[in-house]
């Protein structure tokens, strides 16, 4: 008799955690998408009006476009740089431990601190980057004030912040490639690029897949950088979807609407990740 309830007892911490922190919030949020609620007043049933509003909300669609712009710059940049650095660290170089720590350091620094630091570097009049440009006779760049450049600047900063993590992942991937593959290729007369192209890349494909997925999910959740650096400007060019959802929820207290946007956005991320997975698996074949 005792043994019958014991398994339930053992899994109960997880079940309780799941119900309280996952199942209930998800179900409650789903119910909320059909309501208007400002947190402090009673909810009002609104049918599908939040969904209709979402499809007509130009700023929301702009925020999605902005997020994709960020991903298009950020993901390739992140993969190329982290792979190049991992390749560098995979060689027999001096101070390997120092470089590993140095590349990883930005990952553990608070996002807010990094953002404030880069905001000063990007400053138009007094920022270090523009001072350097002027000192070599080039024009200043509106890193955060030019609507065509601001999202790119944020992508550069986010890449610097996160690249250390992916360097470690790629390094692990590179170290799983059997060295005799390279030895055999060398005997056959393959050069560095051919070895990288024909051996390294196929062998670390699972790592590339993981990095792409993690970067995509991380990129979709772009929030701190535009929130602190630009507030979504200039001209809404850095208004990411998460920042817009946050504004709807915690600035205007449109909880029902923000949750509707959140649900749609979660489905969008799921769709993108599934497509990426299929595409990379096809490449693998």
């Amino acid at each position, binding site marked *: 008799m005792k043994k019958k309830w014991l398994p339930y007892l053992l899994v109960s911490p997880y079940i309780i955690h799941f119900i309280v922190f996952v199942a209930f919030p998800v179900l409650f949020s789903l119910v909320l998408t059909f309501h208007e609620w400002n947190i*402090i007043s009673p909810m009002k049933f609104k049918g599908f009006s939040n969904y209709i509003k979402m499809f007509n909300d130009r700023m929301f669609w702009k925020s999605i476009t902005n997020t994709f712009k960020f991903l298009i710059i950020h993901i390739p940049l992140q993969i190329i740089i982290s792979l190049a650095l991992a390749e560098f660290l995979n060689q027999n170089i001096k101070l390997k431990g120092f470089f590993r720590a140095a590349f990883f350091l930005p990952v553990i620094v608070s996002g807010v601190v990094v953002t404030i630091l880069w905001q000063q570097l990007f*400053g138009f009049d007094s920022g270090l980057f523009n001072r350097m440009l002027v000192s070599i006779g080039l024009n200043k760049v509106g890193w955060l004030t030019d609507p065509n450049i601001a999202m790119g600047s944020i992508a550069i900063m986010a890449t610097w912040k996160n690249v250390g993590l992916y360097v470690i992942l790629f390094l692990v991937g590179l170290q799983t490639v059997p060295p005799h593959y390279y030895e055999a290729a060398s005997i056959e007369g393959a050069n560095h690029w051919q070895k990288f192209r024909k051996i390294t890349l196929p062998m670390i494909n699972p790592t590339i897949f993981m990095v792409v997925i993690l970067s995509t999910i991380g990129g979709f959740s772009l929030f701190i950088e535009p929130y602190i650096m630009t507030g979504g400007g200039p001209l809404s060019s850095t208004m990411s979807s998460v920042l817009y959802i946050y504004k709807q929820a915690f600035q205007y207290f449109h909880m029902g609407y923000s949750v509707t946007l959140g649900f749609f956005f979660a489905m969008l991320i799921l769709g993108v990740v599934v497509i990426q997975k299929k595409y990379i698996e096809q490449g693998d074949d």
Partner: protein
Amino acid sequence: MLKHIYIYFLVLLVGCNSPNDQKDNTLLYWSSNNRGEIEFSEYFVKQWNNKEKTKIKFQPIPEGQSSEEVILASVVGKTTPDIYANMWQGSVEMYAKAGVLVPLDTLDGFTEFIKARCTKKVLEEITSSDGHIYQVPWKINPIMTIYNKRLMSDFGLSKLPSTYDEYFKAGKKIKADKDNDGYIDQWVGYTAVKVIWYERLMNFYPLYIAASDGGALIKDNKAAFNNEYGVGVFRFLQELYQNEFYSKERLTAGQDRFITEDIFTKWIGPWEIRHVDKFKQRDDFEIAFYPVQVPKGHNGPVYTYSDPKNIVVFNTCKQPQNAWNFIKTLIDKEGDKKLLEITTQLPNRKNLETDSIFKEYFESHPKMKTFAKQANYLKGVDNSEVIVEVFDIISQEYEACVIYNKKTPEKAMEDAEKAVNNLLKN
């Protein structure tokens, strides 16, 4: 969502201070967490607790991203304090409509006291749409133009630039490339360029109030700012940026171009007096204040934004009458004098400049006297539960028109009016 998790935790954190933990004869009082207001609150709580049966437990508002977020979390978690001092006037209507505040005009002695303390205009401003009063007008920080006295003579300015035209002329005179790198690095002024709504309380809004002699943004549930004053303010600010009299730089909190003497003026409240004293880099750095700029031909006194912060009593309070009795001690004449002395903030009371009790203070603090004079010509914010969204809409148009010159002032104002009317209709 991280933010959701954050607010849940904030609710839990704030819940640790649940008023349910208080004894029945203890009231929980939250103030702002700046040093001056903590000292001010501690002084009065001590005085009260020495005399009264009902005790006050004081604590600064718990740490959070912003005081608004902490208050919201405490309302959601039903862990509000009994008394909260430092509520932005614009936030009160939303809480009043949600029924979480005590209508103070139902308490004995409130109406008489507040009528004796405040002007009719302030009373109209704080009266909710249901006719009740849910906030005690407490303190104000009028927005004025600060200027660097020494730079004025260095730049050869014979008079303070008080109108838009004079300000442009000063801008032309002051604009300079000091290090000869081909870029301007000295300006007539600076104001925040971020698109976040509250930044407009420091530039567009005081200028609009000044031009319109205290005009409203919303009237009869419709946008009321698309007029010659609103358009004029957008044009004034747009030209400042177009002519490079102002920089578009996004400065971080640590960067202050007024302190580094790269700008001559900025729009700011009296808190800047202490800030300049603390951070000035040379002993002959002298400052003074004057009203914000107005269009040419403007007659009469210049109004400005008062930045009002008020006191509220939450409906979780079991002894609202006692709460009001305590609040009275903070805002009677002696309380207001202490507020001035300890926090360098002005009480929101009539005849501040002429009242004999404050005379000595203003004589020894002439800069504060300028603000006391300005206190006769103030406006807070319109009573609307969507006032933040209204400012946000204006802010979006401000950025497009003023900063990036993508729209004419007329078009930007028209678009803002349409969006606000649409918002108010729903």
